[in-house]
């Protein structure tokens, strides 16, 4: 295959890019835009959570612990437990939200978390109605 002379000059055409304004997302200055439906952190509507531990069962990462709560927010919650997620295990597959009978467990689009203490990553879902 012969290399053409034209092809040694043509790449310089790419330089017109310098006249374009960069479309970079400058993250720390400009916050990330929330995407509806993004699989981020968990939220749990405590007023409808029935503490059935379906989420715990389906999670293949064994990331979900059912822990006791002090104040009952839902009278139908027979066990008095709510899920807590270990974010050192979770893979955000959202199987737990798929099997949730009252649809109380959901994922929100917030997803950014950096921390220097590895023991803080046990996450109690925020009580947010959905």
């Amino acid at each position, binding site marked *: 295959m012969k290399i053409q002379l034209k092809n040694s000059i043509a790449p310089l055409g790419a330089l017109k890019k310098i006249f374009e304004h960069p479309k970079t997302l400058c993250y720390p200055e400009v916050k990330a835009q929330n995407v509806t439906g993004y699989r981020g952190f968990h939220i749990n509507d405590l007023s409808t959570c029935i503490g059935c531990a379906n989420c715990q069962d389906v999670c293949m990462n064994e990331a979900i612990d*059912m822990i*006791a709560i002090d104040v009952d927010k839902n009278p139908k919650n027979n066990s008095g437990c709510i899920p807590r997620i270990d974010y050192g295990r979770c893979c955000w597959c959202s199987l737990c939200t798929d099997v949730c009978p009252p649809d109380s467990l959901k994922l929100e689009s917030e997803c950014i978390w950096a921390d220097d203490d590895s*023991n803080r990553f046990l996450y109690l879902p925020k009580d947010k109605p959905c």
Partner: protein
Amino acid sequence: MQNLMQHFEIIQKTPTLYALHVSIETLFNTLHHLRYQSDFITLSQLTCTDWIEEERFELGYMLTNLERNCNLMVKCFIGRDDVTVASVVTLFPQAEVMERELHEMFGVGFEGNDTLYDFALEDWQDLPPMRREFDTLAYVQSHYDFRDGRDDNLDVKEQIKIRKAAAKSAKEAQGGA
């Protein structure tokens, strides 16, 4: 294909997938025949399934034809312990690495393949990991640590029972009063 069907007991699984069971003695000759006398000239996968209840492994040679539109599984049952199968490296050079992998993962020996050194694992001391009797969770628990702080995990069924009992006794206490 028709021609092959006459020679061997080939089962059609799907329109493009055929299977053939052979014994360990005829395995190499069958593959040799298929490689040189038929269209199936490519070995695209070498599989091994552990049927621990039946105490045998099932080796599967996935052959693909020249047109790449038809697959033939040549399967063969072998024993689980200290088995050596004739290597097919002379027929299919790409089998070298596949056999190396199976040797490491299942402990199947391949005679005639002298590259059966480490594939993915380094200094592995335990059982070959893909065998069914190798319990990965037990291995993990004995070799690695999980992070602490998850002891407050409760069994929901227990909790329901406890709460029911508590509610009942509370009711009784109320009724009693």
